[in-house]
């Protein structure tokens, strides 16, 4: 693939990096990445991946832009209130970088559509706001052998891990979703807007590292930070032999909508 003069200029700061160069930028331009959720995490993830020139960006979100989103979801602007988030995101991505092909899914990520959607992508990014879908993304990616980045934020805290086939998954550390309402969400407990940017840009960096092969990914590690103390910490993780999806005797071999559904199935 030959670069146009415009592309060489646009991506010059990547091309200058010894770990990326022309070859790495070519890999980014050929990359296909799915971002699940175009909200607080999805916004910075999408903006940076668009600017970086990721060839195909899939965006899935069933929501429309709400005024209360704008405190942190920096891909959406005030005139976008009421517009589907995927449409609003696509418009910004196209303006940032016409090299990027955007595929939009104005729906939620479910057990029914999960495999069909992720099969088209090299890497999946979790930018969702609830536990059932975070576990669903984990299970779908583990079962399909897809690499993904998990991200979670709350109040002043954030955490993320990267999974590649064979490395520790989200369930290795967090066995199953907490009961509904046991752990507050951002809409209940609040979140500092900039936290979404801090964690989302870490996830975007992981995607670009994965596509180019630069550096060491956050595999078998959970990165956590607290913005009040600005302490960052990585906890080493090992694949958990008792993990219900990637352990030695998995009990999860197909996708179900939520933990409640799992219990119902088991009791039958």
């Amino acid at each position, binding site marked *: 693939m030959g670069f146009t003069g415009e592309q060489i200029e646009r991506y010059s700061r990547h091309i200058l990096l010894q770990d990326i160069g022309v070859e790495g930028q070519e890999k980014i331009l050929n990359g296909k990445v799915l971002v699940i959720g175009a909200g607080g995490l999805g916004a910075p993830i999408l903006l940076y991946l668009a600017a970086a020139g990721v060839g195909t960006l899939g965006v899935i979100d069933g929501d429309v832009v709400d005024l209360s989103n704008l405190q942190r979801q920096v891909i959406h602007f005030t005139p976008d209130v009421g517009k589907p988030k995927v449409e609003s995101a696509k418009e910004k991505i196209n303006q940032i970088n016409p090299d990027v092909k955007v595929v939009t899914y104005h729906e939620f990520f479910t057990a029914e559509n999960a495999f069909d959607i992720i099969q088209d992508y090299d890497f999946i990014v979790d930018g969702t706001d609830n536990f059932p879908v975070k576990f669903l993304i984990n299970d779908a990616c583990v079962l399909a052998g897809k690499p993904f980045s998990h991200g979670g934020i709350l109040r002043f805290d954030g955490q993320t891990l990267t999974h590649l086939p064979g490395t520790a998954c989200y369930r290795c550390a967090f*066995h199953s979703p907490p009961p509904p309402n*046991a752990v507050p*969400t951002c809409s209940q407990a609040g979140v500092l807007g900039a936290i*979404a940017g801090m964690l989302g840009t870490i996830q975007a960096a992981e995607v670009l590292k994965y596509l180019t092969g630069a550096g060491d990914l956050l595999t078998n590690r*959970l990165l956590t930070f607290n913005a009040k103390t600005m302490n960052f910490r990585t906890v080493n993780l090992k694949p958990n032999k008792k993990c219900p999806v990637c352990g030695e005797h998995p009990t999860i071999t197909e996708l179900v909508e939520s933990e409640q559904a799992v219990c119902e199935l088991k009791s039958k």
Partner: protein
Amino acid sequence: MSKIKVNDESQEVTFPLTVTGLIKLNNVLQPDMVSVQLNGEFLERQDFETTELKEGDEIDFLYFMGGGC
């Protein structure tokens, strides 16, 4: 007093002490919702109460974070 490490920070405790006791000692906000690694291995929740800690143990408390919105 004996020394253990909790989330990378040194802590002085008195034995006998179980994982459940350490969770209480650290005022973990939602004790039912914390994931615990002991010396790099995840503990099952049902074993928190019977797992006795010893000098030099390294414990990680991991918390659920469900936001992204």
